[in-house]
């Protein structure tokens, strides 16, 4: 098997119409050895140069960087880059998921697995609801294997919603997405996570990248890739399976994981606090995922 490697550059550029006296940011853009991928190199830089920058591992095990800039500035560029080997990312659920899905539901657990509990409870943006449960039970019929049920749920979510950039934003709730019938990958992921939790199956939100292929005959353009989000189904004992309802496929070697949380709010690629009189800020995000 040929090694699959990607070089990723993720550049976030803020421009303000008045000086910012201080910026504080938290960045979840650091891939690590998880989900079968191996991170060969990674770094985060910012301009202006942060007077304080520190990397640590968060509650969920993800690397995260804190940075603060205390000199007045009117633009901020945060650039993360990495080299990741994704050869080992599985394209199938694996044998354990052949067990019936009820086996994985926390409702039937005798001994609490804290990860399972954490990822099956309601989280800030994803709560189990009867509406989501109804959707889930279409795929989660009694005795069915977790792999089959999850794959069908993934297709169901994929079919039920139209991918439409700009139709939602980070504040859109699941109910609104359900009513709207459209959304972006974050919404697809949240809906599917909500469905899984509604039947007691622990599931997480994965933030990362996906390699885009240029249309046939065209050259690869730079800066046109995007960050992506998909779903991780918890299989117990620290094992997860990645599945992408936006594209109705397993999150295989074309995917790169940067962070896993209960939902988007645990792992936004970049969040921050600034102090400024600026009324407007212009934000440009450029992502390049280049086969290496």
């Amino acid at each position: 098997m040929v090694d699959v490697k990607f070089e990723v550059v993720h550049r976030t550029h803020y421009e303000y119409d008045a000086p910012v006296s201080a910026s504080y940011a938290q960045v979840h853009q650091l891939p690590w050895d998880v989900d079968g991928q191996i991170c060969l190199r990674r770094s985060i830089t910012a301009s202006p140069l942060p007077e304080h920058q520190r990397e640590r591992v968060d509650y969920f095990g993800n690397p995260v960087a804190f940075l603060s800039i205390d000199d007045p500035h009117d633009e901020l560029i945060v650039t993360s880059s990495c080299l990741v080997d994704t050869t080992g990312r599985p394209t199938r659920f694996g044998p354990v998921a052949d067990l019936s899905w009820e086996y994985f539901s926390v409702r039937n657990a005798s001994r609490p697995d804290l990860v399972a509990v954490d990822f099956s409870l309601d989280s800030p943006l994803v709560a189990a609801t009867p509406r989501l449960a109804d959707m889930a039970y279409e795929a989660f019929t009694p005795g069915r294997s977790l792999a089959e049920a999850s794959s069908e749920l993934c297709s169901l979510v994929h079919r039920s919603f139209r991918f439409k950039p700009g139709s939602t934003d980070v504040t859109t709730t699941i109910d609104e997405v359900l009513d709207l019938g459209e959304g972006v990958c974050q919404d697809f992921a949240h809906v599917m996570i909500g469905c899984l939790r509604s039947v007691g199956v622990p599931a997480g939100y994965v933030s990362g990248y996906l390699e885009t292929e240029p249309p046939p005959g065209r050259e690869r353009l730079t800066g046109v890739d995007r960050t992506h989000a998909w779903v991780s189904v918890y299989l117990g004992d620290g094992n997860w399976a990645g599945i992408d309802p936006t594209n109705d496929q397993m999150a295989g070697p074309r995917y790169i994981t940067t962070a896993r949380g209960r939902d988007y709010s645990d792992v936004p690629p970049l969040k921050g606090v600034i102090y400024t009189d600026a009324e407007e800020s212009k934000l440009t995000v450029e992502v390049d995922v280049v086969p290496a």
Partner: protein
Amino acid sequence: MTIASSRDPIQRYAPPEAGRDELVARDGSIRSHWARLADSYRDLGMAELLRRREEIAVLLEQDGVTYNVATDDGRPHRPWELDSIPLVLSSDEWATVERGVAQRARLLDLALTDLYGPRRLLSRGSIPPDIVLEDPSFLRVCDGISLPTQRQLVVYAADMTRASDGNWLAMGNRTQAPSGAGYAIQNRNVISKVFPAIFRNAEAMRLAPFIRTLRATLQAAAPSGVEDPSIVVLTPGPLSETAFEHAFVATQLGYPLVEGSDLVNRDGRVWLRTVSEIVPVDVILRRVDAWFCDPLELLPESTLGVPGLVEATRTGAVSVVNPLGSGVLENAALSVFLPELARALIGEDLSLPSVESWWCGHATSMSHVLANLDSMVVRPTSRRRGGSTIDASVLSKTELEELRARIDADPRSWVGQSRVEPATAPLLSTDGFDPRPTVLRSFAVAEGSDYLVMTGGLARTARTPDRGPITNRSGAVAKDTWVLSTEPETLGGFWLTGEPTSAAEHTAPLPSRAAENMFWLGRYSERAEAAVRLLRVVNGRRTEFEQISEGPGAEALAALLTAVTRVTTTFPGFVGDDAARLLADPGEELLALVVDESRPGTVAQAIGKMFDAVEVLRDQLSVDTWLVIGSMQGRLERLGSISHDRDDAVSTVLNGLLESLLALAGLMAESMVRDHAWQFMEAGRRIERALQTTALVGALLTVDREPAAESLIAESALTAAESIITYRRRYRSHAQVDTLLDLLLADPGNPRSLRFQLDRLEEGVGALDAARGVDADASALSKVREAIGMLEDTESTRLVTVSDGNRHELGSFLWEMRRHLLGIADAIGADNFTRLLPQHAMSTPSEPPGWST
């Protein structure tokens, strides 16, 4: 002897038969530890007890003790109410409580350490993991953070009720940022002043060790390697419910009271913005709920915290007490599992058991709760998840069904508690002692590996015998709590025991925001005083001349009225389109200039702004300040009801206000240390007085008038500027403009003159610059000197020249001088006060992450 005083306050005392009473035993006899005290209250008699009850109210008002409750009118202060009669516990009873509270604190500390560490309690199932993992107060971002102290839970409070069998039960745990210890000490201060003999004879245990221990533990909480830690008390601000207490505790501890905006995160640590520099902060005693403490990692909208605070605690650069995340211990469902935890973690049974509780997340418990719902108190597990405690016993059938449905829909979020009828304790009413349900909050503070429990606490008593919550919000009355000692204590004041104090080295740094408020306190109090003086003069002239429509008197009165509008900048007033009507009948407008708080420039507005500044400065000002502020508030409130045709009443009120303002000025002059804070207030006062004097002179004397009118006007100006006596003594003539200008502008010896203000500013700003180590050329001082130079270069004879009926030279001099003064004020602000830019969240991509093949 009057009938009232002979009446026995206790004779009629009849507690409910079923319950437990603190004062009287079942057989009707006075409990033994109460016997001597009961006699003392009987000896005092009702009349004296009621007189002392008044005294308590006065003392509380004078100390400015409030508990803030949100109200519609925007002034949320509710005076603190304190009963005359303490809750009294014998030393034996207390020993059980003390042991129980300390034990609970130890136990909760172990739980806290585990929950933000290995979480074995959850993985082993000692606590159902949902309870913690689903609680919004469990802060995942605080995982793995710990304080250098042996105990992580530094301050703990237990809400307790005594059941009918005489045993105390814990109703709830306070671990987020427990309030009440400061109020308890304040209660003690007042009761011991009002009942000195009774208090002395009772030999109640002292509360001082609590604060002393808190201070020692805060010091011990400093990051390792820090020898003389810098410690601050973090408050949400003056609108917080317990703002009084935040300032009180800060003052007792001797640490600065700060708001989030006073702090800044730089180089990975936390600093306090002071006027001269930023100084590192090592320990934060927080009175802000954890969620609000860091907009970066917690609630993004919060402006009460510091971005990056969590990160700074993570690296150990700063210690936050109680640690962020401690609020999870308040989860009501946790209480259900405490007995097992006690056995598992410390191998003991709880000495102070919790009220019997059932977590509805367990099916059998939920059935029990639902089956007995009408005899339950139902609580949401976490306060942050919304909803409040519900006494199901008072609900209607429909309401019960609704509650049942709510619990059924989300059982894990609910806890049922058995109802406990709190024991009654005597509350002093106008007729004597009344038995009223009473609860007690007890406080513990970590001391090394153990806990010190405050020998007393904050007791609260319902006003009526009815059931219902006994909380400050619901209007309960506070009580001092006396623990009777068996043997005499060794006395030690707050400052007396074993701590090295070197005052000179430990002057608490002055936060920039406090400095700015001091400056505005100076400006507004001076502005109020100037307006009051001017309005008094005008009132006087009205009495003399209002009935006369022509001649110098009428001209002078009209000039004074228009000057009032100009000096107070309350346009249009006596110079606008409606001027003719208002000049003919000025009463209403003049009253409005005193009482209308919504109108900029009025006396009421200046005093209102002054109050706002004082609220923020609670920890900076002498306690006597509240004496003056309280009386001023009273006067302003009375003003609201005055009708404008009662000008005699207006002048009485103006005199009263002036008296208070002078008292305040006297207090500032005589009771405040000449530190930075004082310098800023003084600078504000001087600038404002200079502005007021120049405005007054400009408004009254730039127009040339015939001598009789001019003399009247000049005399009024001198009176308003509090210089008339000096003038008469010095010049022995009727008032003339040239000599007036000498006295009010140029005389360096007249404390009301422009020159005097500039000289004081030169000294004051110079002192502030010296402290900051800055160069005069680059600071406000250069502007002060320019103004002095301009004044020195001006010949007063030139100023009085008249052309076209006007003193143009005087007008342009004053205009130029005012420009200088405003420039000085701005420069002081720019030199010393941090202007914080508004806080925003960084925007996130308008198109969220998205990709589809």
